[in-house]
C-alpha cells in the first residue's frame, strides 16, 4: 500500500512523535539510565528531535495549506496550528524537564515517552470530527498526563495529585463518551458534522436527548480546560506534578481542548443552531463563574504553583468569553490568546525551574529577591506577569483586547465589564509575584541556606524562559502578523463554516 503525499501529511504529524516515543522507551530500558549521562542526553536529544521534526514538518505543511481529509483526519490549517502549538509547548517542556528532573534527582526516560504520546493524542484530538477518533485522542493524551502528574514517585504528594486527577478525569471522560453515544444513538453516525445535519433534517435539534448529549460532551471539554465547576483537580494536579509538566498541562491540554471545542461546537454543530445557542448561554454563565472564582481564589494562595493553577482557571474564563461572543474574529482572538498564553505560562513555570525551586519550595517566600540575582530571568518574569495581567504593550493585552472587542461588538458589554474587573483583580496576584522577586529582600534565613547550597545552574530552562519571553514580546509588537498570518488563517481555512 502506498500513500499519496497528502495522506502522509495527515499521518506524519502523528507518526513522528509516536516513533520518537518508541525510541525513547527502548533507550530507557537500560537500567543505568539514571547514572549514565550520555544515555540521558541521548533520550532527551531524541525527544527534542522528534518534537523538532514534527514542528519543522508542520511549518512546512503550513506553507502548502490545508490537506484533504484522510481516514477521519482533517490535516487542515487548524490542525496544523494545533500541531505547531503542541510541538512548541512540548519542546519548551523537554528543555525545562532536563534541568528540573536533574534538580529533583529523578531523570527517567518514561517521562519523555509519555510526553510524546500525549503530543500524539493532542494532535489527533484536534484534527478530527469523528467522535470515536475524538475520544481516542482524548484518552491518548489524558492517560499519559495522569501518569506524568504522579511521575516523581519519591514524593507522596505527587502520587496523590496524580490519583486525584485520574479519578476525576475518568469521570469526565465517561461523561464525554456518554454524550457522544447519545448523539450517535439519535443520528446513527459517529461523524459529528453528519450527525448534526441528520438531526436537523429529522427535526430533533431540540430533542432533550440531543441537548443532554451535547451538554455532556461540553462537560468533557470544560473539564479539560478546567472551567468552574470542573476545576477542582487543577490546583492539586499542578502542585503535585513536576513544574514543566504542570506548565505543559496548563497550556497544551487547555489549548487543544479549546481548539477541539472550536471544531465541534461552532464547527460541526454549527448547523444545529438552537443547540449552539443553548451551549453559548451555558458557556456565558460558566465563564462568569470561572472568572470570579478563579481570580478570587488565586488572590489568597501562598504557593506560586497553586496561584498559577487558579490563574490558569481564570484564563479559561477569558477564553470562554471568546466563545460567548462567537464571531470569527473572536475565535481568532481565542487562538491568538492561546499562543500568547502558551508562552506566558510555559515561561512562568519555567522560571520556577530556572530559579532552582524544587519540591515544596514554591511559595512566594522562596522567590524573594531572586529577580535581582538573575536579571534576565527577572526581566522575563516581569514580562510574563504583566502580560498575564493584560497590561499593554505585551501580548496578553492583545489577546484580551481581541476578545473584549468582540464581546462589546456583539452587545455583551456587561460581560466585557466583568472581564476587565476580573483582570484588575488578577493584576494583584500577578504583582505579588513581582513584589516577591523585586520588592522584597530575601530573609536572612533564606540567604544563609542559599549560601550553603551550590549555585543553581539551569541553562536549558533559562533558554526556554527567554524564548517564551521573546514570544510574549513579539505578541505585543508584531501582534498583527501573529493574529492575521497565523491565528486568523487557522480559523478561516480550518473551520470552513466561519469563512
Amino acid at each position: 500500500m502506498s500513500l499519496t503525499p497528502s495522506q502522509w501529511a495527515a499521518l506524519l504529524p502523528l507518526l513522528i512523535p509516536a516513533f520518537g516515543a518508541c525510541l525513547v522507551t527502548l533507550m530507557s530500558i537500560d537500567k543505568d539510565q539514571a547514572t549514565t549521562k550520555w544515555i540521558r542526553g541521548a533520550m532527551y536529544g531524541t525527544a527534542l528531535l522528534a518534537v523538532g521534526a514534527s514542528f519543522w514538518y508542520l511549518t512546512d505543511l503550513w506553507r502548502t495549506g490545508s490537506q484533504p481529509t484522510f481516514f477521519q483526519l482533517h490535516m487542515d490549517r487548524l490542525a496544523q496550528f494545533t500541531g505547531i502549538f503542541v510541538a512548541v509547548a512540548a519542546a519548551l517542556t523537554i528543555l525545562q524537564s532536563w534541568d528540573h528532573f536533574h534538580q529533583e534527582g529523578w531523570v527517567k526516560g518514561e517521562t519523555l515517552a509519555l510526553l510524546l504520546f500525549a503530543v500524539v493524542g493532542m494532535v489527533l484530538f484536534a484534527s478530527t470530527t469523528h467522535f470515536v477518533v475524538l475520544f481516542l485522542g482524548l484518552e491518548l493524551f489524558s492517560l499519559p498526563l495522569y501518569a506524568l502528574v504522579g511521575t516523581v514517585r519519591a514524593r507522596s504528594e505527587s502520587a496523590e495529585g496524580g490519583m486525584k486527577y485520574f479519578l476525576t478525569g475518568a469521570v469526565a471522560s465517561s461523561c464525554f463518551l456518554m454524550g457522544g453515544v447519545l448523539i450517535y444513538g439519535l443520528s446513527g453516525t459517529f461523524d459529528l458534522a453528519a450527525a448534526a445535519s441528520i438531526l436537523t433534517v429529522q427535526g430533533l435539534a431540540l430533542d432533550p436527548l440531543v441537548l443532554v448529549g451535547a451538554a455532556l460532551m461540553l462537560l468533557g471539554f470544560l473539564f479539560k480546560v478546567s472551567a468552574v465547576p470542573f476545576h477542582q483537580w487543577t490546583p492539586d494536579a499542578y502542585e503535585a506534578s513536576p513544574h514543566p509538566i504542570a506548565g505543559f498541562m496548563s497550556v497544551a491540554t487547555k489549548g487543544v481542548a479549546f481548539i477541539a471545542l472550536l471544531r465541534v461546537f461552532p464547527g460541526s454543530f454549527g448547523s444545529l443552531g438552537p443547540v449552539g445557542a443553548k451551549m453559548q448561554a451555558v458557556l456565558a454563565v460558566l465563564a462568569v463563574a470561572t472568572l470570579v472564582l478563579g481570580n478570587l481564589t488565586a488572590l489568597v494562595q501562598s504557593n506560586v504553583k497553586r496561584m498559577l493553577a487558579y490563574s490558569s482557571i481564570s484564563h479559561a474564563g477569558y477564553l470562554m468569553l471568546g466563545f460567548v461572543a462567537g464571531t470569527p474574529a473572536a475565535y481568532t482572538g481565542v487562538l491568538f490568546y492561546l499562543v500568547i498564553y502558551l508562552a506566558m505560562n510555559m515561561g512562568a513555570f519555567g522560571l520556577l525551574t530556572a530559579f532552582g525551586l524544587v519540591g515544596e519550595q514554591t511559595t512566594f517566600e522562596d522567590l524573594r529577591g531572586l529577580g535581582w540575582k538573575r536579571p534576565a530571568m527577572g526581566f522575563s518574569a516581569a514580562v510574563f506577569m504583566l502580560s498575564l495581567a493584560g497590561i499593554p504593550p505585551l501580548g496578553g493585552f492583545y489577546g484580551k483586547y481581541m476578545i473584549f472587542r468582540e464581546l462589546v461588538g456583539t452587545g455583551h458589554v456587561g460581560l466585557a465589564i466583568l472581564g476587565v474587573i476580573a483582570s484588575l483583580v488578577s493584576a494583584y496576584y500577578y504583582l505579588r509575584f513581582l513584589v516577591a522577586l523585586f520588592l522584597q529582600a530575601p530573609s536572612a534565613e533564606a540567604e544563609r541556606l542559599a549560601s550553603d547550597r551550590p549555585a543553581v545552574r539551569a541553562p536549558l530552562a533559562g533558554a526556554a524562559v527567554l524564548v517564551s519571553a521573546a514570544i510574549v514580546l513579539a505578541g505585543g509588537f508584531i501582534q498583527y502578523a501573529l493574529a492575521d498570518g497565523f491565528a486568523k488563517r487557522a480559523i478561516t481555512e480550518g473551520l470552513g463554516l466561519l469563512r
Partner: protein
Amino acid sequence: MTWLNLHPLTFLVFAPTVLGFLLMALPHALGKLARLLGFLGALAIFVLSLAWLLGHAPAAGGTVMAERTPWFTLVGLPVDYALAVDGLNLWLVLLTTFLVPLTMLGTWNSLKDRMGTFAALFLLLETGMLGALVAQDLFVFYLFWEAMLIPMYFMIGVWGGDERRYAANKFFLYTLSGSLLWLVALLYLANKAGGFNPAVMAQAASALPFGVQGWLFIAFAVAFAIKVPLFPLHTWLPDAHVQAPTAGSVILAGVLLKLGGYGFIRFAIPMFPQAAMHYAKPIALLSVIAIVYGALVAMVQRDIKKLVAYSSVSHMGFVMLGLASMTVIGTQGAMLQMLNHGISTGALFLLVGMLYDRAHTRMIADFGGVAVKMPIFTTFFMIVTLSSIGLPLTNGFVGEFWILNGTFLSGFPWGRFYACLATSGVVLGAVYMLWMFMRVFWGPENKDEDSGTHHLHSDLNAREIAVMLPIVVLIVWMGVHPKTFVAASETPVAALLQEVKAPAPRTFVLTPAVHEASEAHEAVGAAGAHAPEAPAAHEVHP
C-alpha cells in the same frame, strides 16, 4: 538623516527607551556610568526637543510636527500610528523633557544601589509620558497611558520608603481600575466609529443617544480624574507621593498628574461636548472640594512631603475647575496651571528630597531654624513656596487668577459662587505653606541631638544650585510673561471651546435674563443647595 527628518517625534519618544534598555544591560558594577549616561541622554533629548519643537514654525492649525501612518488592523479596527505636537501639548512635552534630566541631576546621590536600573526605568517612563502626550490615536494613547504604570510601579516599589510595596500596588491597581473600565468605553465607541481616530470617534459619539454619551464621558472622565487626581479619587496620591523616591515624586507630580488634565482637554471634552457641558457642574464642585479639602488636609500634616502631596490635590483642583469653566481664559489658566504645578511642586519635591538626604527625616517637628544652617537652600525654598502660594509676579498667581476669572465669568449659574469658594483655597494655600515654612526654617535653631536640623551640615552644593536656578528663572518668567507659554494653546483652546459650545447644549439653554436670575439666586443660596449628583444623574438616563 532622512529617517530622522521624517520621524522626529518617533525618535524623541523612543530614544529614551532604546537608551534605557542599553542601560539595563550594563553590568551592575557600572551603575555610576549608567547614571551618567542616562542623564546625558535625557539632557540630549531635552536639547533636541527644544531645538526641534521651538525651531519649527507651527503650521496653520497650530501643529508643530506630526506623523501618521497606518499601523495595524486587528479584529477589524484600524489603528494609526499617529503622533503630533500642537498647541495643546507643546509645552507639556517640553516640561517633560525638561524635568527628566533636571530630576536626574537633582537626585544624583539620593540612591545608593541599582542606579543603572533606576535610570533605565526613568527613561522608559519618559517614553511613556511623551508617547501619551503626543499620541493622536486613542489606541496608541491607551498603550502609552498603561505602559507608563510599569516603570513607575517599580520606581516606587523598589526604591521607595517603608510602605513602598503597599503604595506601589495601590498606585498600580487604582490607576488600572479606571483605565480598564475606560477601555470598555473605548471599545464600545471604536466599534461604532470603526477605528480609533479621535475625530471620527467624536463624530460617532455625537450620533449616540445622550444617555450613552453621558456614560462614555463618565468612563473617560473617571480614568483621567484618577490620574489628576480629582477628589474623591485622590486617595492613592498621598501614599504614592510619600513612599516614592524623590525622583519618582517629582515626575509623578510634574508630569503624570498633568496627563489626567491633558486627557480631559484633548479627548474627553472635545469628544463628548454635550456631556462635558452637562457634567461641568459636578466636576467643578468636586474641584472646589479638592481645592479646599486638599488645602485643609495639607495644613495638618506633620510630614513635609505629605503636605506637598496634599497641596498637589489642591492645585490640581484648580486645573480641573479651569477646565470645567468651559471658558477660554479658564482653560488657558488650567493649561498654565498645569505647567506651574509641574515646575513648583516638582521643585518642592526636589527641595524636600535635598533636605531629607541630609537630615534623614521629613517631619516638620524635627526641624526649626534651618535658615541659619542652610541660607541658600532657604532662599530657594522661599521662592518656590511663594510661587506655590501664587504670589503676584510668580507663575502661580497668573494661572490661579485666570482660572478663578474664567470660573467667575463662565456664565454657568454656579460660576460665581464656586469662584468665591475656590478663592478661599488660595488663602488656605498661603496658610499651610507659610506655616510649614515658619516652623521649619524660622525660629531658634533646633539643638536637639536627634533633630533634623542637627544633622544638617552642608548647604546646597554647586550641582543642586544648578538644578534650582533654571526653576527660579522659569518661575519668574512664567509669572511676568506668561504669554510665552500659553500663546501656542490659545487658538486651539478657543477653537475647541467654540466646538464644544456650538451644538447648543440641551441642558443649559438659558436666556440671559434667566441666567442673571439664577446667578443671583445661587449667589445667595446656601451651600446645601448645590447637591450636584442627584439632578445630573437623573437627566442622563431618563
